Protein backbone atom coordinates (compact mmCIF):
# COMPACT_ATOMS: atom_id res chain seq x y z
CA UNK A 1 0.00 0.00 0.00
CA UNK A 2 0.92 3.65 -0.01
CA UNK A 3 3.81 4.39 2.27
CA UNK A 4 5.42 7.36 3.91
CA UNK A 5 9.05 6.69 4.77
CA UNK A 6 10.43 9.11 7.32
CA UNK A 7 14.09 9.52 8.20
CA UNK A 8 16.06 9.62 10.33
CA UNK A 9 14.25 7.86 13.15
CA UNK A 10 16.33 9.79 15.68
CA UNK A 11 18.37 12.97 15.48
CA UNK A 12 20.71 14.52 18.06
CA UNK A 13 21.56 18.19 17.70
CA UNK A 14 23.60 20.67 19.70
CA UNK A 15 22.05 24.03 20.38
CA UNK A 16 22.63 26.41 17.52
CA UNK A 17 23.10 23.75 14.87
CA UNK A 18 20.63 22.54 12.28
CA UNK A 19 19.58 19.56 10.26
CA UNK A 20 16.83 18.20 8.07
CA UNK A 21 14.14 15.57 8.36
CA UNK A 22 12.85 13.90 5.25
CA UNK A 23 9.79 11.99 4.12
CA UNK A 24 9.70 10.00 0.92
CA UNK A 25 6.44 8.86 -0.60
CA UNK A 26 5.83 5.74 -2.64
CA UNK A 27 3.16 7.49 -4.68
CA UNK A 28 2.19 10.99 -5.70
CA UNK A 29 0.69 12.85 -2.77
CA UNK A 30 -1.44 15.99 -3.03
CA UNK A 31 -0.22 17.61 0.20
CA UNK A 32 1.86 17.10 3.31
CA UNK A 33 1.44 18.18 6.88
CA UNK A 34 4.19 18.31 9.52
CA UNK A 35 3.51 17.98 13.23
CA UNK A 36 5.43 17.96 16.50
CA UNK A 37 4.13 15.87 19.35
CA UNK A 38 4.17 17.80 22.61
CA UNK A 39 4.70 16.48 26.11
CA UNK A 40 0.96 15.80 26.50
CA UNK A 41 0.92 13.69 23.37
CA UNK A 42 -0.89 16.27 21.25
CA UNK A 43 0.06 16.80 17.65
CA UNK A 44 0.94 20.43 17.09
CA UNK A 45 0.57 21.70 13.53
CA UNK A 46 3.79 23.01 12.04
CA UNK A 47 3.11 23.22 8.31
CA UNK A 48 0.61 22.31 5.65
CA UNK A 49 1.94 22.37 2.10
CA UNK A 50 0.34 21.54 -1.21
CA UNK A 51 3.51 22.62 -3.02
CA UNK A 52 6.66 24.71 -2.67
CA UNK A 53 8.16 25.85 0.61
CA UNK A 54 7.03 27.52 3.80
CA UNK A 55 9.02 29.03 6.59
CA UNK A 56 8.10 29.79 10.17
CA UNK A 57 10.82 31.08 12.44
CA UNK A 58 13.62 28.56 12.55
CA UNK A 59 11.64 25.91 10.72
CA UNK A 60 11.32 25.56 6.97
CA UNK A 61 9.51 22.91 5.00
CA UNK A 62 9.44 21.94 1.36
CA UNK A 63 7.19 19.61 -0.60
CA UNK A 64 7.77 18.26 -4.09
CA UNK A 65 4.83 16.17 -5.20
CA UNK A 66 6.42 15.11 -8.49
CA UNK A 67 9.66 13.97 -6.83
CA UNK A 68 7.66 12.42 -4.00
CA UNK A 69 9.33 13.93 -0.95
CA UNK A 70 9.05 16.55 1.72
CA UNK A 71 11.63 17.98 4.07
CA UNK A 72 11.61 19.84 7.36
CA UNK A 73 14.68 21.90 8.17
CA UNK A 74 15.53 23.04 11.67
CA UNK A 75 18.12 25.80 11.97
CA UNK A 76 19.69 27.28 15.11
CA UNK A 77 18.18 24.46 17.18
CA UNK A 78 17.01 25.32 20.68
CA UNK A 79 16.33 23.03 23.62
CA UNK A 80 12.57 23.48 23.18
CA UNK A 81 12.79 21.99 19.67
CA UNK A 82 13.26 18.57 21.24
CA UNK A 83 10.38 16.23 20.54
CA UNK A 84 9.00 13.81 18.01
CA UNK A 85 8.22 15.17 14.55
CA UNK A 86 5.84 13.52 12.13
CA UNK A 87 5.05 14.05 8.50
CA UNK A 88 1.70 12.97 7.13
CA UNK A 89 0.71 13.03 3.48
CA UNK A 90 -2.59 13.00 1.72
CA UNK A 91 -3.37 11.05 -1.40
CA UNK A 92 -5.09 12.50 -4.42
CA UNK A 93 -8.85 12.47 -4.18
CA UNK A 94 -9.11 11.94 -0.45
CA UNK A 95 -8.58 13.56 2.91
CA UNK A 96 -7.02 10.69 4.79
CA UNK A 97 -3.46 11.33 5.96
CA UNK A 98 -0.80 8.63 5.89
CA UNK A 99 1.65 9.15 8.73
CA UNK A 100 5.38 8.62 8.80
CA UNK A 101 7.02 6.77 11.67
CA UNK A 102 8.35 9.92 13.31
CA UNK A 103 11.73 11.45 14.05
CA UNK A 104 12.74 11.93 17.67
CA UNK A 105 14.85 15.08 17.88
CA UNK A 106 17.02 15.67 20.94
CA UNK A 107 18.66 19.05 21.33
CA UNK A 108 21.43 19.30 23.91
CA UNK A 109 23.38 22.28 25.25
Amino acid at each position, binding site marked *: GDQVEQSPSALSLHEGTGSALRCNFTTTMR*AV*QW*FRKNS*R*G*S*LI*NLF*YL*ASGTKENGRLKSAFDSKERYSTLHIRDAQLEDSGTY*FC*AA*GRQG*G*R*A*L*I*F*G*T*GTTVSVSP
Partner: protein
Amino acid sequence: GPKVLQIPSHQIIDMGQMVTLNCDPVSNHLYFYWYKQILGQQMEFLVNFYNGKVMEKSKLFKDQFSVERPDGSYFTLKIQPTALEDSAVYFCASSPPGQSGNTLYFGEGSRLIVV
Protein backbone atom coordinates in the same frame (compact mmCIF):
# COMPACT_ATOMS: atom_id res chain seq x y z
CA GLY B 1 -4.62 27.78 18.35
CA PRO B 2 -7.76 25.79 17.56
CA LYS B 3 -8.40 22.97 20.00
CA VAL B 4 -10.02 19.59 19.59
CA LEU B 5 -11.16 18.10 22.88
CA GLN B 6 -11.54 14.40 23.53
CA ILE B 7 -13.43 12.66 26.31
CA PRO B 8 -12.52 10.39 28.03
CA SER B 9 -8.75 10.71 28.10
CA HIS B 10 -8.54 7.06 28.98
CA GLN B 11 -10.88 4.15 29.59
CA ILE B 12 -10.56 0.52 30.59
CA ILE B 13 -13.31 -1.74 29.37
CA ASP B 14 -14.13 -5.42 29.38
CA MET B 15 -13.94 -7.23 26.06
CA GLY B 16 -17.35 -7.46 24.45
CA GLN B 17 -18.69 -4.31 26.04
CA MET B 18 -19.55 -1.17 24.12
CA VAL B 19 -17.48 2.00 24.30
CA THR B 20 -18.15 5.49 22.99
CA LEU B 21 -15.32 7.95 22.48
CA ASN B 22 -16.32 11.58 22.27
CA CYS B 23 -14.76 14.40 20.33
CA ASP B 24 -15.55 18.10 20.49
CA PRO B 25 -14.11 19.45 17.22
CA VAL B 26 -13.08 23.02 16.47
CA SER B 27 -16.28 25.04 16.24
CA ASN B 28 -16.32 26.06 12.55
CA HIS B 29 -14.85 22.84 11.21
CA LEU B 30 -16.86 20.63 8.92
CA TYR B 31 -14.68 17.55 8.41
CA PHE B 32 -14.05 15.08 11.20
CA TYR B 33 -11.67 12.18 11.49
CA TRP B 34 -10.67 9.30 13.71
CA TYR B 35 -7.19 7.82 13.77
CA LYS B 36 -5.91 4.83 15.72
CA GLN B 37 -2.44 4.34 17.16
CA ILE B 38 -1.46 1.03 18.68
CA LEU B 39 1.41 1.32 21.16
CA GLY B 40 4.72 1.55 19.32
CA GLN B 41 3.13 1.76 15.89
CA GLN B 42 2.26 4.49 13.43
CA MET B 43 -0.88 6.53 13.58
CA GLU B 44 -3.38 5.05 11.11
CA PHE B 45 -6.45 6.52 9.50
CA LEU B 46 -9.81 5.03 10.40
CA VAL B 47 -12.54 7.23 8.97
CA ASN B 48 -13.57 10.68 7.92
CA PHE B 49 -17.02 12.18 8.18
CA TYR B 50 -18.67 15.13 6.51
CA ASN B 51 -22.22 16.42 6.33
CA GLY B 52 -23.54 13.52 8.34
CA LYS B 53 -21.90 10.83 6.23
CA VAL B 54 -18.83 8.64 6.22
CA MET B 55 -16.73 9.85 3.29
CA GLU B 56 -13.74 7.53 3.52
CA LYS B 57 -12.85 4.60 5.71
CA SER B 58 -9.91 2.26 5.95
CA LYS B 59 -9.85 -1.49 6.38
CA LEU B 60 -9.24 -0.84 10.10
CA PHE B 61 -12.74 0.58 10.37
CA LYS B 62 -14.42 -2.71 11.19
CA ASP B 63 -18.15 -3.41 11.13
CA GLN B 64 -18.13 -3.05 14.91
CA PHE B 65 -17.18 0.62 14.54
CA SER B 66 -19.61 3.43 13.90
CA VAL B 67 -19.41 7.21 13.88
CA GLU B 68 -21.97 9.95 14.16
CA ARG B 69 -22.40 13.58 15.10
CA PRO B 70 -26.00 13.97 16.20
CA ASP B 71 -27.33 17.54 15.99
CA GLY B 72 -23.88 19.14 15.84
CA SER B 73 -22.85 17.87 19.25
CA TYR B 74 -19.94 15.53 19.93
CA PHE B 75 -18.48 13.56 17.05
CA THR B 76 -18.43 10.03 18.41
CA LEU B 77 -16.70 6.76 17.69
CA LYS B 78 -18.60 3.77 18.99
CA ILE B 79 -17.14 0.28 19.18
CA GLN B 80 -19.63 -2.50 19.82
CA PRO B 81 -18.57 -5.07 20.78
CA THR B 82 -14.99 -4.31 21.73
CA ALA B 83 -12.16 -6.77 21.12
CA LEU B 84 -8.70 -7.03 22.65
CA GLU B 85 -7.11 -5.69 19.46
CA ASP B 86 -9.09 -2.48 19.81
CA SER B 87 -6.74 -1.41 22.60
CA ALA B 88 -5.05 1.72 21.28
CA VAL B 89 -5.04 5.48 21.49
CA TYR B 90 -7.77 6.96 19.34
CA PHE B 91 -7.19 10.45 18.01
CA CYS B 92 -9.92 12.70 16.76
CA ALA B 93 -9.19 15.46 14.27
CA SER B 94 -11.15 18.12 12.47
CA SER B 95 -10.50 20.43 9.55
CA PRO B 96 -12.15 23.57 8.23
CA PRO B 97 -13.88 24.01 4.88
CA GLY B 98 -12.22 25.57 1.85
CA GLN B 99 -8.71 25.40 0.47
CA SER B 100 -7.21 25.29 3.95
CA GLY B 101 -9.67 22.56 4.81
CA ASN B 102 -7.10 19.88 4.53
CA THR B 103 -5.18 21.16 7.55
CA LEU B 104 -6.04 18.76 10.33
CA TYR B 105 -6.15 19.69 14.01
CA PHE B 106 -5.80 16.80 16.41
CA GLY B 107 -7.01 16.16 19.93
CA GLU B 108 -4.85 14.66 22.66
CA GLY B 109 -6.24 11.18 22.18
CA SER B 110 -8.37 8.74 24.13
CA ARG B 111 -6.46 5.74 25.43
CA LEU B 112 -8.63 2.64 25.30
CA ILE B 113 -7.62 -0.53 27.08
CA VAL B 114 -9.74 -3.60 26.43
CA VAL B 115 -9.24 -6.39 28.95
